C-alpha cells in the first residue's frame, strides 16, 4: 500500500495551494431553479443535507414528546393514543427519512465522485430524480402525520396495520414505499460509479475505505429494498382491498410479513451503520496521522457485513413462534455478523496505537463512536443469544441497544462526516471550541439517555408501553434528563455551522492535511470537481510517508502546533518529521 523508493520513503514537495476558481459549484449560479434542477452531485448532496436536517429535527421533536410523556408512570403530557402516534412518527421519520438516506445521500453523493476522481456520478439525472422521489415519499409521510398520524409502530405489523388500526396507515406505508425507490436510485448510482468511473490509477486496492463501505451499503440497498417494497405493496393491497395474503381469516400468515419485512429491515440497519464505518476509517487515519491498520480486513469486512447481514433477519422473531431449530441457526448467524464489525473496531484501535492524535471535532465524534458503537455491538450479542433474548425481547434493553448503534454509532459518524467535510463543502471553517463542546455534550447526553434504558429493559419494562410501575420512574427521569442534554448538543451545530457560513475563516484546500482526492481541489470545489483529471499513484492513507493519493506531499496538519508542542521544536513540522519513526513498519 505504500511506495518505497530505495530504502527511504519518498516525500514529495508540498503542492502550492490551488488558486480558487472564480466560479465554484456554489457561486456558479444563485437562482432557486439552479438548485432545484441541478444535476451536479455536489448540489444534490446539499439538497439532501438541508432536507435531512429538517427531518432529523422533526424526528427529534417526536422523540422529545415520547421522552416527556415517560416522565410520569401514567403518561405526563398526552393520551396513550397520541403516545402511539408519537413513537411511530419518531421511528418512521428517523429511520426512513434520516438514517437510511443520511450518509449515502449527503456525503456519498457529494464525495464518492470526488474521492474516485470522477466528474460526477454515472447517472446525474437519476441522482436528481432520487431527491425528488425522496421528497414525494416524505410528503406522503408528512401528510399521514399531519392528518392524525400512524399508530402501528415503524414495523407496521399486520393484522393490526392491515385490519384494525384506524390511523392513516395507507399514506404512511405509501410514503415509505416511495422513499425506498430513492434509496435504490442512490445505491445503484453509487455502485455503477464505483465500477465504471474511477480515474486512472484508482484501483480497487487504492479505493478509500469510505468508498468500500458505500459500495457495500449500495449492495444491501439494491438487494434488500425491493423486497420491502413488494411487502409494503402487499400490505397496502390488503389494507385497501380489505383482503390480502397476510390475512389470517383466509389462511394467510402474519408471520410471513415479519419474515419479508425483516429480510430488508435487518439489512437496513447495516445500510445505516456501514457508511458510518467508512467515515470512521477516513477520519481516524487523518487525525491519528497513521496509515489504516489492516486495509484489506476493513474493506472486506464491509462486504462481509453486507453478505452475512442478509442471513440473520429472523432474530427479530425469536418469540414470534418460528421453528426451534431455525431460531438456533439464526442465533448462530447473528453472532457471526458481529465478527466483521469487531474486526473493524480492532483495526481502528490499532490505527490509533502510537498515532499522533489530535482532538478536533471530527475526531472527538469518532472516538465517541468507538465507545458507543462497541457498547451497542456487545449488547447486541445479549440479544443474539437465544436464551437471554427471551428475557430481553421487546424491552427497553432492545431500545437502548438499537440507539447505541444507530445514534451512538450512526448519528455520531454522520456528525463526524459533517464536521470533517464541512470545510470542503462550504469553504468555511467552523468554531473549534463550540464544535468540540458539542461533541462532548452529545456524548455525555447520549450516555445519560440510554444507559438507564438498559437497566429498565433488564428489569422488564416493555418497549412502546406508555405506562410503567412507579419504581421505574427514577430511570425514566434520568433518561429524559439525558435526552434534554442530548437535544441541546444537537442544537449547537445548527448554530455554529450556520454562523460559519457567514463569519467562518476561509478554508484552505486541505485544512486537515488529509490524503484523499477530495482534498486536491480548492474549497469549495469547482463545478467539475478537478482542474485537471487526476492520476492516482498511491494508496489512500499514506500518512506515514506523508503523501496524498497523487503522490504529492501533505501540507502541515492542524493540531496543537503551538510553541509548547515538542513536535514543533525538532526539525520539519510536516508529517515527515514526527512520522519517521513509523516508516519501518510501512510496506
Amino acid at each position: 500500500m505504500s511506495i518505497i523508493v530505495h530504502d527511504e520513503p519518498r516525500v514529495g514537495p508540498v503542492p502550492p495551494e490551488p488558486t480558487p476558481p472564480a466560479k465554484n459549484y456554489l457561486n456558479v449560479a444563485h437562482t432557486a431553479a439552479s438548485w432545484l434542477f441541478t444535476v451536479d452531485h455536489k448540489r444534490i448532496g446539499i439538497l439532501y443535507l438541508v432536507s435531512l436536517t429538517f427531518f432529523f429535527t422533526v424526528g427529534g421533536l417526536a422523540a422529545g414528546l415520547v421522552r416527556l410523556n415517560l416522565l410520569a408512570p401514567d403518561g405526563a403530557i398526552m393520551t396513550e393514543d397520541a403516545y402511539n402516534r408519537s413513537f411511530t412518527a419518531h421511528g418512521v421519520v428517523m429511520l426512513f427519512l434520516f438514517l437510511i438516506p443520511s450518509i449515502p445521500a449527503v456525503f456519498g453523493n457529494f464525495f464518492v465522485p470526488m474521492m474516485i476522481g470522477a466528474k460526477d456520478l454515472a447517472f446525474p439525472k437519476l441522482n436528481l430524480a432520487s431527491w425528488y422521489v425522496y421528497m414525494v415519499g416524505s410528503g406522503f409521510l408528512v401528510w399521514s402525520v399531519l392528518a392524525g398520524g400512524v399508530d402501528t409502530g415503524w414495523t407496521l405489523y399486520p393484522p393490526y396495520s392491515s385490519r384494525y388500526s384506524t390511523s392513516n396507515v395507507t399514506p404512511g406505508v405509501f410514503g415509505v414505499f416511495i422513499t425506498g425507490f430513492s434509496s435504490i436510485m442512490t445505491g445503484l448510482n453509487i455502485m455503477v460509479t464505483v465500477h465504471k468511473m474511477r480515474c486512472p490509477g484508482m484501483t480497487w486496492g487504492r479505493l478509500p475505505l469510505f468508498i468500500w463501505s458505500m459500495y457495500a451499503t449500495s449492495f444491501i440497498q439494491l438487494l434488500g429494498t425491493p423486497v420491502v417494497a413488494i411487502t409494503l405493496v402487499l400490505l397496502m393491497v390488503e389494507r385497501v382491498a380489505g383482503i390480502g395474503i397476510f390475512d389470517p381469516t383466509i389462511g394467510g400468515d402474519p408471520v410471513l410479513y415479519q419474515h419479508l419485512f425483516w429480510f430488508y429491515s435487518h439489512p437496513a440497519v447495516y445500510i445505516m451503520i456501514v457508511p458510518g464505518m467508512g467515515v470512521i476509517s477516513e477520519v481516524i487515519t487523518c487525525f491519528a496521522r497513521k496509515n489504516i491498520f489492516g486495509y484489506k480486513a476493513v474493506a472486506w469486512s464491509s462486504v462481509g457485513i453486507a453478505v452475512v447481514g442478509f442471513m440473520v433477519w429472523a432474530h427479530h422473531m425469536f418469540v414470534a413462534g418460528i421453528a426451534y431449530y431455525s431460531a438456533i441457526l439464526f442465533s448462530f448467524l447473528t453472532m457471526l455478523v458481529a465478527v466483521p464489525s469487531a474486526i473493524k473496531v480492532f483495526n481502528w484501535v490499532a490505527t490509533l496505537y502510537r498515532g499522533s492524535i489530535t482532538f478536533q471535532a471530527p475526531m472527538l465524534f469518532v472516538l465517541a463512536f468507538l465507545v458507543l458503537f462497541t457498547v451497542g455491538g456487545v449488547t447486541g450479542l445479549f440479544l443474539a443469544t437465544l436464551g437471554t433474548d427471551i428475557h430481553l425481547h421487546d424491552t427497553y434493553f432492545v431500545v437502548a441497544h438499537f440507539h447505541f448503534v444507530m445514534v451512538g454509532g450512526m448519528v455520531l459518524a454522520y456528525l463526524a462526516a459533517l464536521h470533517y467535510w464541512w470545510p470542503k463543502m462550504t469553504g468555511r471553517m467552523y468554531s473549534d471550541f463550540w464544535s468540540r463542546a458539542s461533541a462532548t455534550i452529545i456524548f455525555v447526553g447520549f450516555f445519560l439517555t440510554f444507559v438507564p434504558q438498559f437497566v429498565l429493559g433488564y428489569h422488564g419494562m416493555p418497549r412502546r408501553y406508555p405506562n410503567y410501575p412507579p419504581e421505574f420512574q427514577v430511570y425514566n427521569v434520568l433518561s429524559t434528563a439525558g435526552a434534554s442534554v442530548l437535544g441541546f448538543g444537537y442544537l449547537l451545530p445548527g448554530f455554529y455551522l450556520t454562523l460559519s457560513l457567514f463569519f467562518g475563516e476561509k478554508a484552505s484546500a486541505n485544512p486537515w492535511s488529509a490524503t484523499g482526492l477530495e482534498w486536491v481541489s480548492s474549497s469549495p470545489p469547482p463545478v467539475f470537481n478537478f482542474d485537471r483529471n487526476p492520476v492516482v499513484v498511491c494508496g489512500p492513507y499514506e500518512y506515514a510517508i506523508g503523501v496524498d493519493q497523487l503522490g504529492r506531499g501533505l501540507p502541515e496538519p492542524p493540531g496543537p502546533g503551538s510553541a509548547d508542542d515538542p513536535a514543533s521544536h525538532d526539525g520539519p513540522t510536516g508529517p515527515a518529521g514526527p512520522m519517521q519513526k513509523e516508516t519501518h513498519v510501512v510496506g
Partner: protein
Amino acid sequence: MSANHHGVLKHHFDNLEQQHAAERLGMWFFLVTEVLFFGGVFVAYTVYRYWYPNEFAFASSHLLLWVAGINTGLLITSSLTMTLAIRAAQLGDRRALIRHLLATFALGAGFMGFKAFEYYTDIHERFVPGEMFRQELAKAELELHAGHGGDHHGTAQHWAVDLAKNNADKSHTDPAYIGPGRVQLFLCFYYTMTGIHGIHILVGLGCILWLVQQAATGKIPPENYSTVEVVSLYWHLVDMIWLFLMPLLYLAGAGAHAAGH
C-alpha cells in the same frame, strides 16, 4: 470525434465505451432489484402453495388458460422484435428500428388488451376475493341445497358451483376439502402478481414509445444504440417474469387435478 459531434457523449464520461458500459451495468443492477421485487411475492406464493396445494390447484384451474397461452406467445414474439430493433439500431437503419419498435409496442399492447379482457371476464364471473366471492359462493351453496344438484341449472358461476359441490359432503378436516378462504388467498396472488406485472408492461410500453420518438428525431445514431439495448434488457426481464408467472398461476391446477382424481 464523431460521437461528440452528435452530442452523444455526456460531459462526465471520458469516452463512449465507458458511457455505454455504465448504462448497461446500471440497467443490470436495476434488473437485480426487479428480480428481488418479484422474488418477495414468489417466496410468499411458494409458502402458501406448499401449505394449500388443493386450493391453489382448484383456483388455478378456473382461470382462463387460453388467454394466458396467447399472451405468452405475444410476449415471446415481442422479445424477438425488440432484439431485431437493437440490430437495426447498430446498423443505423432508422426505418427498420422504428418498424421493429412499433411491432414490439403492438405485441405488448396486445398482451395488455388480452389481459384487460381476462380481468373483465374474471370480474364478470365474480371470481374476485372478498365480498363478491363470498356472495357468489353462498348463492351456489343455496342453489345446491335447493336441488339444482345434478347439472348446472342455477345462476351461480361455474367456479362457485364446483366449489360448493366439492365441499358439500366433506368436513373441514377432509383432505379433499377446499377451503374457500384459501382459494381467495390464491386469487389475491393472482391479482397482485399479474397487476404488478401489468404495470411493468405499461412502463415498458412507455419506454418503447419514447424510443420511437427518439429514433424518429434522429437521436439514436449507431454509436448510441445502447439506449435501445438498455430498454430491451428491461423488456426481456418483464417478459421473463411472465414466463414464471404463467405456469405458477395458470398451470398449477393441471398436474394436481390429474393426481387428485
